[in-house]
């Protein structure tokens, strides 16, 4: 009987773990891509230190997410891939497809397995996190030229979109909204902790703005 209870709680924990692990994988990937310039303006990240190790690390962490709950992990990752493509929607990429075509094709495959509702709600969840991040990082992103909605659309417009997305998701899937927000906060806190305790001996501190 206690086994069943344990299994029950674990079952409820699984989507949450999927959020945390997928979120970690996404964060490692993003930070790695934005690494060098961000480090220069003091927006330091733990994963910049991983350098080439970022790829296997991100993949492994993502596997843990899939093991916890594949539907959550896969749709969240797809959503961040799709939203991360925002500078390259019209451009022809390595695959010879444009950003749009890549997003639609991969989205169709994934929604065939997990359904369009899971895909849509994950997209909303990642949109919320991204918009929030963009509002916080507006000034730094302006300096380094990073893609940022608050710069592109304006802060008010981004904030309004954020509110709309939050309302929509709280209607469609309040649990996803809650779990994604909790894991987002958890991950950013944890990353900050890793930076302050991990040391950054390999980075020339003279070069980093304090």
């Amino acid at each position, binding site marked *: 009987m206690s086994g069943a209870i344990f299994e029950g709680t674990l079952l409820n924990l699984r989507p949450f773990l999927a959020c945390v692990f997928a979120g970690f994988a996404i964060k490692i990937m993003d930070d790695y891509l934005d690494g060098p310039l961000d480090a220069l303006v003091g927006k330091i990240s733990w994963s910049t230190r991983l350098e080439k190790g970022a790829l296997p690390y991100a993949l492994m962490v993502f596997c843990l997410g899939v093991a916890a709950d594949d539907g959550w992990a896969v749709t969240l990752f797809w959503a961040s891939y799709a939203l991360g493509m925002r500078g390259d929607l019209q*451009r022809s990429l*390595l695959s010879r497809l444009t950003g749009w075509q890549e997003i639609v094709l991969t989205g169709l495959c994934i929604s065939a397995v997990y359904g369009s509702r899971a895909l849509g709600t994950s997209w909303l969840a990642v949109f919320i996190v991204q918009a929030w991040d963009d509002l916080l990082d507006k000034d730094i992103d302006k*300096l380094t030229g990073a893609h940022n909605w608050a710069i592109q659309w304006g802060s008010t417009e981004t904030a309004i979109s954020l509110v709309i997305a939050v309302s929509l998701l709280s209607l469609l899937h309040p649990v996803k909204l809650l779990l994604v927000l909790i894991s987002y906060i958890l991950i950013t806190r944890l990353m900050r902790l890793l930076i302050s305790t991990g040391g950054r001996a390999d980075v020339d501190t003279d*070069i980093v703005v304090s």
Partner: protein
Amino acid sequence: MKQCVLIGKTNVGKTVFAINFADFLGVSKLAIEFTTPNGEIYERNLSLSDALQELTSDTPHHTLGLQKFQISLPGLKGRKRFTIVDTSGLTEGIHREAFVRKAMAQTLAQVRTAAVILHLIDAGSVGKVGVLEAVGEVDWQVAQFGGMRRGYAILANKMDLMGAKQGLLKIRQDFPGHLIIPISALNKTGFTEVKQYVWRHI
């Protein structure tokens, strides 16, 4: 084709940067289009080492007119093409030679339409003699103009020299609110950051 314009006083290392950055991005032969201050255009093919030898020097105004070449930038998702425009250096006041004056007018005209403006400052000499001596009125004007638009960054060059770190700190103090990337055009350091910056703006 989007343009990345190099601007700054003479002898800060614009031409060395242009050639070595091309090398860093995997270009082995340069098809350089020269535009004289009078507007005549001709093209020459040069290897990187020949270009370094012929086009750079420590005498001012070695580059008169514009030197342009195309670069295909390899990135995470495909490639982007752009043109690097190496300009003649800016000097204080009005130069007595008409040819030099024309070259400067030409430089400023490029800046208006550029997608990326990289403003080079010699951090080595800033470290040695201070910002006021090493950086001229022109640099302030360029920074002020650049700060109002997208794609403007300062490259603190010659970081390999003694005192350049001191120079970098002073440049940071005196040009607040700008992105400042420390580089050594000679040793090709800091180029990853510059590449990422250029990529984001073209």
